[in-house]
């Protein structure tokens, strides 16, 4: 179901409670009574059209590709992506870590299996961190520089130099499927791990992994289907402008 301006914000959460993390990233707090999406966004000072695109894309994986998201500024999109990074490292990953830690503590036999799991996730955490760091220090600043150059009337040679050393195509090539290991981890727990006596924690861990995975898939989708095509178009225009100048 498509989420629109006039739906109650409360119903958005009832529809799919994973949207809680999207709300959180927009700084929208609970307790909005029967206010609609548009009303809540206005109070919280959130661009309602942008919110709608993001939340719809999150809920319905087939919502992409849509032209609307292309019209928002790169800055707005990368700001949102940055917030999702923050979410992973400050909330979702620590939660998973502490759940694994609890499982290790509560376990007396075959502890080595869980230690293995813990190490696997630790490696993954490092990989995720490298991935998001690279995006924040290299990719996002690049996309913003391209947008600035695209919008400005004058041709700045420094952008041309920048484009010589990096391009969105490079990002596309190196953009690995960061969610694959999470997929593996889920399957290992569901299918193969000898179940500890206390299965409650194990279930909690799975919920947390599913949630992180969905978030990361959504995040990559925004990058691959919105950010990359947008920047690629801008790069073309800028290259053409330089060509005309010469």
């Amino acid at each position: 179901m498509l989420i629109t301006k006039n739906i109650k914000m409360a119903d958005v959460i009832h529809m799919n409670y994973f949207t809680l993390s999207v709300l959180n990233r927009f700084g929208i707090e609970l307790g909005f009574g029967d206010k609609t999406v548009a009303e809540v966004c206005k109070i919280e000072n959130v661009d309602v059209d942008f919110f709608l695109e993001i939340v719809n894309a999150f809920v319905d994986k087939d919502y992409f590709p849509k032209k609307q998201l292309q019209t928002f500024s790169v800055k707005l999109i990368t700001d949102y992506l940055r917030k999702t990074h923050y979410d992973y490292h400050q909330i979702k990953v620590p939660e998973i870590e502490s759940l694994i830690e609890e499982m290790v503590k509560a376990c007396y036999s075959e502890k080595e299996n869980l230690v293995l799991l813990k190490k696997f996730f630790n490696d993954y955490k490092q990989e995720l961190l490298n991935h998001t760091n690279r995006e924040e220090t290299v990719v996002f600043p690049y996309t913003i520089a391209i947008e600035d150059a695209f919008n400005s009337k004058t041709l700045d040679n420094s952008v041309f130099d920048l484009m010589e050393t990096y391009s969105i195509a490079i990002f596309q090539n190196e953009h690995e499927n960061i969610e694959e290991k999470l997929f593996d981890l889920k399957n290992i727990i569901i299918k193969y791990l000898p179940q500890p006596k206390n299965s409650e924690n194990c279930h909690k861990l799975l919920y947390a992994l599913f949630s992180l995975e969905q978030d990361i898939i959504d995040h990559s989708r925004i990058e691959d289907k919105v950010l990359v095509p947008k920047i690629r178009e801008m790069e073309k225009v800028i290259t053409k402008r330089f060509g005309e100048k010469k």
Partner: protein
Amino acid sequence: MSKSTFIICEKSYLIRKGLISIIEKIPDTRIVQQFDSEDEIKNLGNFESDFIIINTNLLNTKTQKILQKISNTSAGGMGFTQIISLSQKSEFKEINWVEYINIDDSQNIILTKLKTLIGNRKTDNPKSEAPDEISKREIDILKNIALGLSNREIADKLFISAHTVVTHRKNITRKLGIKTVPGLTIYAILHKIINIDDTEQIKS
């Protein structure tokens, strides 16, 4: 397991949606494409699917030929596309209809008809129901992957081509539902295919 794919050709939006909601009740099915006009039927040949469900009121003598041709070509090497009629009368006798769905059919009847077709198709294609257990050879390969060897190294060690190693890896991934090397390593340790110590030796 591979999914059974459907293309639906029907003018009425309501009937299309109804049919889709029934098909979606069957696990491992996917709707590839929907067509709602005579004109679009011409493009049918550009899509691959296991089944085409079509209302004959969308067919004319020209598009009929296209459909005949499709029913004689195989979809992605998985056997021939089967064509299901979505109309009461059996027009266009040249087409090899495998089933008829009537507008008055109850949900259960439609489900039974479709499930039978899918079931028959699966048994016709033994390839699609390969057992999910991994073979002895695959365990050999898995062991070496877990030990950190590259495709080339595994190929040399086991006297097979690198291409064969890749094929084995694909099958292992499909059967276990694990894609990455660290994931496969954990599987191998949990199943005592290798020891934890083995992997640590490699890393150090």
